[in-house]
């Protein structure tokens, strides 16, 4: 089993979820995060005083799936999340060594 972790633009969330739906994902968990990569930060201001904000709001999407589905899901996310401009985000993949479905107690791939 693998975990796919994609950090994307918040405004791409809906499209990514739709893409996952289409490609058939087993389940997905979403995080509100802030990130900083190559994308330039923002200048905000308060009562006349400007300041830089380096951490920009991002969404993180995590899917645990079978090994054979990794590529398909990665591609689905990537193509839904792409704008071509700096700040599109990244996808990382991790090994998952065990899974358990709380409701039924199933283990392993059956639990995903």
């Amino acid at each position, binding site marked *: 089993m693998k975990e796919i972790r994609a950090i994307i633009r*918040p*405004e791409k969330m809906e499209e990514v979820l739709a893409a996952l739906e289409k490609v058939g994902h087993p389940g997905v968990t979403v995080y*509100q995060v802030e990130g900083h990569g190559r994308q330039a930060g*923002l*200048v*905000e*201001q*308060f009562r006349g005083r*400007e300041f830089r904000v380096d951490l920009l*709001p991002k969404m993180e999407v995590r899917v645990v799936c079978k090994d054979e589905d990794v590529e398909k899901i990665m591609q689905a996310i990537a193509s839904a999340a792409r704008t071509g401009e700096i700040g599109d985000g990244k996808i990382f993949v991790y090994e998952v060594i065990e899974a358990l479905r709380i409701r039924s107690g199933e283990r392993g791939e059956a639990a995903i």
Partner: protein
Amino acid sequence: MESGRFYSGKRVGPILSAVFLLGSGMALAGDPTGAETLKSDPGLPVDYVWVLVCGFLVMFMQAGFACVEAGFCRAKNATNLLTKNLMDFVVGALVFWAVGYALITGTDWKGLIGTSGFFLSGEGYDVGNYLSFFWQMVFAATAATIVSGAVAERIKFQAYLLYSIAITGFIYPVYAHWVWGGGWLSKLGFGLGHLDFAGSGVVHAVGGLVGLAGAIVLGPRFGKFDKNGKPRAIPGHNIPLAALGVFILWFGWYGFNPGSTFSAHHLRISVIAVNTTLAAAAASLTALILVLAKTRKFDLGMALNGVLAGLVAITAPCAWVEAWAAVVIGIVAGIILVAGVYFLEAIKVDDPVGAVPVHGFNGLWGLIAVGLFADGTYGNYAIEPPFVKGLFYGGGVDQLIAQVIGAVALFVWAFGAGLVLFKVLDLVVGIRVSPKEEIQGLDLFEHGTPAYPEFYTVRR
């Protein structure tokens, strides 16, 4: 204590205006001290207190609009909406002082427009004239701020500032002159002329219909309609803020309506307060029930809009009807509201907070209601006859006709002027923010200040 004395503009126009100037002890140079005015009518203090306190309440409605609009839109545009609500009052007050007030109450030119009294200067420096200005100013600002809800979440701030100047400096004053400044509508040969007690039409329908024009020219927000054109909900981000705003507006409306007698000597103010309450309640309950029937849920958003719909509808007739009629007017207002919300979505107009059905459609309904329910117990800002009578009380269709004519004129003027204004603004400065700005929110791009910088929010 005769009515309309020191409030000539709204009541009786330029001819009686002269009478007023003399009658109120205001010499040609005005009475800035107020001593002469007081001597000429020692009963005035209570009227001044009444009008001022009610005017303060109307001013406080600005807070209500700010809360409702910010609460009913998304967090990413909250600073923008608050800035717009603040600035339309700020700019509106200054423009209205310079120009707008003169266009309403100045010497009439062919029934179309007032032409004197700019900057409150010269003989305008008079306690009675300042009182009248204060009252008219908070009303003008109300009309202005209504529009911001209809054009929310996508208009450029600069364009909104220009719009604010146009509505308080021209669009609103011209129509207000027609009805309250001795213009042609006030002199129609039907009934007692076109009547609009506290401004269902002059204030609310004008605001609502200019807003409709703005919403049409701007087009819907990104995401309001899906690829198949089906409308999608874009929920407001802060329902408690919106609810508080509605309570503030309801509170402020007790200044708006009862205060429009411009005299505490009209004890009719008690009837107006009751009617205002009952219409709001009836409309809100109606809206709640209608949506309940559709979705099986008690929809607070629509019930809040319902309060406002009822308040708008009763604003024109409030002085001329009795309690049961106020309830009926409110029920109809609730129906119009709910139908109006769905209707606008059906024709693909995006009105984020419901300003058009609330203020536009129900403002027109309020005008018509005068012609139906007026029961002959109150006159044209007067407690002496002639009294206003509508169809259901044996007054025939005369007053109704005057009301319909006024409503049509209003629609043509406000919607037309609004269309022209927003089209011209679009050509000259552009009125819509870029898609990127719209998606990331106007707060960051126009103001640099997110509304809740420490809170984690989903950016919808």
